[in-house]
């Protein structure tokens, strides 16, 4: 939207609370990127320089595979989270019917291949944002239909809500469905084991875990190497599953960020809870508060106040937060996630605060002060809400 410095008060650094858009670079990732960038070789070359690059690539691959619980050859590097999701859907979903959660990211919602069987079947969520297991089972149990390809995300990017993935995986296994998990917001933040958890495929993204932008990975749960039709074949890289020379610096950064994140867990819940307490005092409701959530994510709706105005005001005060998932034009759209949760007009009135791994208590306090001031200053111009705020969203 703007460079962070553009809107902030003179002489102050903006406070970055938008980790779910991109995490700040982790030191280990920066160092690994520099090492990789200095290497001359192409990982596919047969000479010594190529071998050195390949060794670094395979080292990154085994790190990522080990930390996420798949065999090394079942880690396919991509350009990022979107490509990892779309590669799974195209490469593994042909001839299957797609069951997709209502609150999935656009990368998945708009990534269904033309070879899919029939139209998308949307999986509804409850008011807390979690998938309705009863409806999922109903869809899976249809006998007359093609085999299913289920897409459900590990953690929601807007609300942080976690689906009950153990039950989801059990149902998918029972009914012979492929379960694809968009783990872009979960990977690197807590432990995942793709095979042990019964996931068929998992997508993750480097820059959402403190690595650089430009690399992602698709993890495949089956025995290695799991076959996968490529979207583009190119030189047959990644076992013929993803053509094109691998972006080694970005991949090395991804692996280092993942490792550093998992080895240095930080519980952000206490800071998050303080922040939410202040926001509720100021009149906000916390969307998805009734469900298990990521510890860093708060979706704060201020009844009657447009998200756009909130976002602009906070930005001009030097606070970087988001609303919905911003389109590349930067416009703030209505949140399809909150809409799916039945939150009505609140879907256009929420901002997302997502604490980065290196957030400070002072940063959270700056947010609390600015948010409280904003809520007070806009109270008089707030549009009256039709009806009551839906139940179950206010954090006690």
């Amino acid at each position, binding site marked *: *939207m703007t460079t962070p410095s553009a809107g902030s008060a003179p002489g102050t650094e903006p406070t970055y609370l938008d980790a779910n858009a991109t995490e700040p670079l982790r030191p280990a990732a920066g160092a690994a990127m520099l090492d990789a960038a200095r290497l001359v070789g192409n990982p596919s070359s047969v000479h010594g320089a190529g071998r050195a690059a390949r060794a670094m690539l395979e080292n990154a691959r085994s790190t990522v595979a080990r930390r996420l619980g798949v065999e090394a050859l079942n880690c396919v590097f991509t350009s990022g989270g979107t490509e990892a999701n779309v590669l799974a859907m195209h490469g593994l979903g042909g001839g299957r019917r797609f069951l997709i959660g209502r609150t999935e990211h656009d990368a998945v919602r708009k990534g269904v291949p033309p070879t899919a069987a029939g139209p998308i079947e949307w999986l509804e969520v409850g008011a807390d944002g979690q998938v309705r297991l009863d409806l999922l089972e109903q869809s899976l149990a249809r006998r007359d239909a093609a085999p299913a390809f289920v897409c459900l995300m590990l953690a929601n990017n807007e609300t942080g809500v976690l689906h009950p993935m153990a039950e989801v995986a059990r149902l998918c296994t029972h009914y012979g469905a492929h379960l694809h998990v968009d783990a872009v917001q979960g990977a690197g933040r807590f432990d995942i084991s793709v095979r042990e958890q019964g996931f068929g495929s998992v997508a993750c993204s480097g820059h959402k875990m403190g690595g650089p932008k430009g690399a992602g990975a698709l993890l495949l749960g089956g025995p290695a190497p799991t076959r996968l039709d490529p979207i583009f074949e190119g030189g047959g890289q990644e076992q013929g599953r993803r053509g094109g020379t691998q972006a080694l610096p970005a991949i090395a950064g991804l692996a280092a960020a993942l490792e550093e994140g998992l080895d240095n867990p930080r519980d952000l819940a206490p800071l998050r809870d303080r922040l939410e307490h202040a926001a509720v005092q100021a009149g906000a409701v916390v969307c998805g508060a009734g469900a298990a959530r990521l510890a860093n994510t708060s979706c704060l709706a201020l009844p009657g106040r447009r998200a756009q105005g909130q976002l*602009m005001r906070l930005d001009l005060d030097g606070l970087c937060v988001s609303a919905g998932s911003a*389109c590349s034009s930067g*416009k703030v759209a209505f949140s399809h996630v909150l809409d799916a949760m039945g939150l009505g007009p609140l879907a256009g009135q929420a901002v997302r605060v997502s604490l980065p791994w290196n957030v400070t208590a002072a940063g959270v306090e700056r947010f609390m002060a600015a948010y409280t001031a904003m809520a007070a200053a806009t109270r008089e*111009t707030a549009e009256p809400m039709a009806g009551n705020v839906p139940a179950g969203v206010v954090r006690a």
Partner: protein
Amino acid sequence: MRILVAMSGGVDSSVVAARLQEEGHEVVGATLQLYDSRKAAKKGACCAGQDIRDARAVADRLGFAHYVIDAERRFQDSVIERFADAYAAGETPVPCVACNQGVKFTDLLGLAREIGAQAMATGHYVRRVEGPQGAELHRPVDIARDQSWFLFATTRAQLDFLRFPLGDMPDKASVRREAERFGLVVANKPDSQDLCFVSDGSYVDLVERMHPEMAGPGEIVDRHGHVVGQHEGVMRFTVGQSKRLGNAARLDGERQMVVGVEPGRKRVIIGPREGAYTSTLSVRDVNWLVDAPPEGLVCDVQMRAREAPRAARVVPMAGGGAQVFLNEPAMPAPGQACVFYRDTRILGGGFIRRAEGLAA
């Protein structure tokens, strides 16, 4: 102070932003996305069109915050649909007035207040003068670019909050020179033309899509209902028009013009030019920028975007309307604005009502 600048991506509003920033204000840029440009342009990777990219490029160059505001839904409801509905009611609407009134001076202005701005500025060619009774709205210095007629519906409260820094510019060339001085990429960008939401310049297709019952050929009739010709579609006709009447343009040696449109019956009614003029008309939804005296006031009225003002007396009526008495008869078109001026100042204005006796 903090000023929100409504930036269209054109040279005018870009110069406004640059000048205000140079004067030391904290400028915040905002561009309305009124429609998805992918539908109109058929290419481009992003839903933001070239104008949005231009506005951002200007903001980035000058180093102030810029935001894209999603107004698609609201623009569709409050401007495009009302535009088509007005045609369906036999009127010739002015969508730019509806857009200024709603999307720009209500919604965007509300957003400006929400973010704590003390004013909102636009690139309109119109002057705001601080008078003894508060802000006044005047024609600009550059009469060739006068946009005051389109802004008559600006309320006093809105006018209080608004700034129009280009009202004093002598001509467009000086605005372009300013843009060059600031090094703006849009310095030589062509001016926008016609209706912004009709990409191929024809509103007829759009209205026919939204009101298919009005589409297609129909009859041209005289005042007595006698069929005197055929036409290609009622949307192409506005009261006062002589074009597109074919052989009916002259009847019994008299030049004819459109005196009414009946969309429901797909009929265009014509009459002799000489007999069609009227000296009184009624206007609705009047916006007063002065305290209107109950006995009325003597002023000039302008009834089309490009037309000389005419001497008249305007009397306010109950229910937000007014009665206009013209010194010389004229041919007002229903749906168009009738704006009251004294010298350069706008006193008020409203929308011309349909004459009675026509069927919608």
